[in-house]
């Protein structure tokens, strides 16, 4: 029995029959090697255990979390949580505990990554830096290994392990930067040289940029930029709480997107990361969000599902009582054309490697402002011609993916960093018909 499973059962025993209880216990480690100015300057790791407890005493609900997991500390932790719950008003919307149910057998874990050494991360960093041939490098290499266990007093008890390895960085010239990113369940899958070479090539090609005139442009969005769109759609749109409150753009069953647009959530996909159950113990599976441009589903936890009269989709995350459930294993369907082929079709447009500092103006309209970063290029007559300085945009994300506005989807789908979290978005390069740039980053 793993320590996480043992912790979950210990806490459940401590609660006994005094409340309906659900426990999430984790054990594991997180390590991150950070580099800047072409050398490692910050190198960190942590080990630890966490226990999260949510309990309902006659419908009075409270939750608590702790990192102190001695027998004595857990005893005091449980008593305090029970006392807190007893002081609460009854939650009329309390959905009850998840019933016992089997989870998918998938396990996204690699033993060599679970306890990867600082030396292994440093070697990847060295390969990335060396690939720049003298350019100034910055970025990070992260490995994580975690065991998660869930148990509730309704009899649901599940556990799983997962790992991740990420290499992300930039190379910089005096006037530009280029980015590249790789993520996998296994550290052995990361090729530091290849990632470094891509970043270096983007940096070199984007040197000495010019200020493009603001306006509407056709765009080629690299996976990092598409991931940003997908994370906003997921967080603010395909969110059962936002939908029930009337704050989401989602209209189930409506053709809200171009028919080339496909989006789904699926931790059971062999390419995904994470464990196949959520923080309420509900099994996770395949959830269609958009099929052939038609909005088909949203993420639910038990509370939003009860309100909507449907079953939970297993998308409860920590904090989803307030923020709502969100998809965290998102795939955007890839196409069959190469990126070069997409670029070849553009008469005049902008290639965007990544977006930066995107913030939503209104969740209902999905209008977002942000900037481009680390490699922005002018496309003319089917080929990249010049580097462009970073540009600010204000753009409705749903509108940008609307009927007839997706002009091509590439065959290069991969994990891409969405600016907000790596390892949750698996997306391709896309060609979009219109994007509203409102100005250059420097005036």
């Amino acid at each position, binding site marked *: 029995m793993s320590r996480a499973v043992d912790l979950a059962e210990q806490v459940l025993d401590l609660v006994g029959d005094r409340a309906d209880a659900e426990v999430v216990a984790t054990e594991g480690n*997180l390590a*991150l*090697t950070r*580099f*800047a*100015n072409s*050398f*490692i*300057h*910050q*190198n*960190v*790791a*942590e*080990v*630890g255990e966490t226990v999260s407890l949510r309990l309902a005493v006659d419908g009075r*609900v*409270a*939750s*608590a*979390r702790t*990192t*102190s997991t001695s027998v004595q500390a857990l005893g005091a932790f449980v008593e*305090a949580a029970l006392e807190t719950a007893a*002081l*609460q*008003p009854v*939650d*009329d919307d309390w959905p009850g505990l998840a019933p016992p149910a089997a989870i998918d057998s998938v396990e996204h874990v690699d033993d060599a990554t679970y306890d990867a050494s*600082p030396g292994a991360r*440093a070697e990847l*960093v060295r390969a990335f830096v060396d690939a720049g041939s003298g350019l100034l490098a*910055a970025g*990070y290499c*992260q490995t994580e290994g975690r065991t998660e266990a869930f148990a509730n007093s309704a009899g649901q008890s599940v556990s799983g392990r997962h790992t991740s390895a990420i290499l992300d960085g930039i190379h910089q010239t005096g006037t530009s930067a280029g*980015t590249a990113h790789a993520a996998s369940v296994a550290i052995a899958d990361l090729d530091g040289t290849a990632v470094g070479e891509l970043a270096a090539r983007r940096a070199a090609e984007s040197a000495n940029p010019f200020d493009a005139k603001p306006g509407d442009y056709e765009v080629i969005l690299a996976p990092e930029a598409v991931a940003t769109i997908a994370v906003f759609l997921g967080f603010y749109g395909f969110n059962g709480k936002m939908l029930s*409150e*009337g*704050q989401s753009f989602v209209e189930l069953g409506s053709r809200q997107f171009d028919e080339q647009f496909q989006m789904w959530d699926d931790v059971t996909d062999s390419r995904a990361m994470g464990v196949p159950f959520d923080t309420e113990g509900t099994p996770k599976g395949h959830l269609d969000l958009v099929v052939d441009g038609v909005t088909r589903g949203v993420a639910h936890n038990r509370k939003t599902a009860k309100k909507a009269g449907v079953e939970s989709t297993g998308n409860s995350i920590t*904090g989803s*009582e*307030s923020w709502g459930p969100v998809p965290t294993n998102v795939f955007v369907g890839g196409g069959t054309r190469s990126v070069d082929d997409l670029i070849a079709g553009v008469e005049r447009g902008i290639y965007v490697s990544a977006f*930066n*500092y995107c*913030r939503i*103006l209104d969740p*209902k*309209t999905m209008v977002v*402002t*942000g*900037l481009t970063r680390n490699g922005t290029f002018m496309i003319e007559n089917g080929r990249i011609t010049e580097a462009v300085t*970073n540009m*600010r*945009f*204000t753009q*409705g994300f749903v509108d940008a993916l609307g009927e007839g506005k997706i002009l091509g989807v590439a065959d290069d789908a991969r994990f891409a960093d969405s600016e907000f979290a790596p390892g949750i978005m698996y997306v391709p390069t896309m060609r979009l018909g219109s994007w*509203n740039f*409102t100005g250059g980053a*420097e*005036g």
Partner: protein
Amino acid sequence: MYEYAEAAVEGALAAGATYADARVVVSKQEGIDVQNQAVQSLDRTEQAGVGVRALIGSSWGFFATADLTRRAATAAGERAAEIARASAVVPGDPIQFADVDVVQATYETPYVEDPFAVSMSEKVDLLVGVTKTMQEVDGIAIATGNLTFYATNKWFVSSQGHRIHQHLVESGGGFDATALGERESQRRSYPQSFGQYETGGYEAVRKWDYAGNAGRIAEEAAALLTADELEEREADLILEGSQLALQIHESVGHAIELDRILGWEAAFAGTSHLELPNLGTFRFGSDLMNITADATLPGALGTFGYDDEGTPAQRVDIVKNGIWLGVLSGRDSAAIAGLPPGGMVRGDGYNRLPMVRMTNVGILPGDSSLEEIIADTEDGVYMATNRSWSIDDKRLNFQFGTEIAWEVKDGKLGRMLKNPTYTGIGPVFWGSLDRLAGGDEWIHWGTPNCGKGQPMQVAHTGHSAAPARFRNVRVGVRG
């Protein structure tokens, strides 16, 4: 708890570190979220552990464990040194460390009313009451309120002899009302977006009179649905204090972080348009722009006794009469820049590496008032309460949205305007500052959600600000 920090430092030194320090952190947090008179979540979080930092050559090694035993702490120190040594695979210049006085001290946040001793029913009743008041206004679909309280004990030990214990208490919260139209949502918040947080006890909640402001906030949210859109144009812009606070945070506070200036954050948070050779001569703004970083301000959210390197809290001039004079620094970054360390290094919990963070970066008060500024404005826009914020990786080009605006005509507030935005370039914008309020309108606004670092860290920062006017600003930008 000192014994665990000492064991960690000893472990690191024995494993070859040339310098080491460790923090034992024991913290608790209580958060209450209420929506439409129902408790959404009541959450209590406890965190305890030790984090140790070891210096070897050109890199920090850092290791954290929640296992508070001497054996585990010693092993953590050894692991920190091992990690620092592994960094030599990709080496740089050895890290230098600016001198500070070695102190043995204690510090406690002054507070009147322990927020954890206030009954849960009183806190819940307050939030249920304000959400009820907001729901009674026609058009309000969602009314939320929240309170969060933090108590943090830190024991810091360094291999140079520091021994510092701090007990920090922070309190705050807020509420908001959302009105839903057919194709839009409009929101108003109080006291500011994401709530107002301060160092101190429950008095930091009581003083804001939630109940007395809930109705007004809800009525404004509902009225926004039928308000006119702000048109795109150039206008004189008057900012309410909390929006100016965020403007300072984003376009000044992050730009003056020395780790960004030195390139240490280039790949993630970004760099800065500021260059060290221009320190002391670069014109950041108009003569009215006087910015300090002051970790000693009573009640402000970025106030403490000592930073997480043992450097005493202090006040540093950042911009004086519009000229850039100072940075936010730690002992290692200050040594590279040849500056005295500013005591601005903090870590988020026991398990994060301390790094350069804002303290209280704020503008010194002016001699005007909002009323006078409006009366003195012929044709402008008054914007209040942040709704969106975005700025480029050099901290130059920004675009902010606020929840609400009013047109200003011939010295008077006119029509309410919705979806207000403004955009600009930092030093150009600050150069256009020509009126600044003070007195009671100068408030220590708190930002409880400043993200930086990898793994991500969240810091609590303060920003003193008052209403101010900027000339000829591009407003009303949208897609």
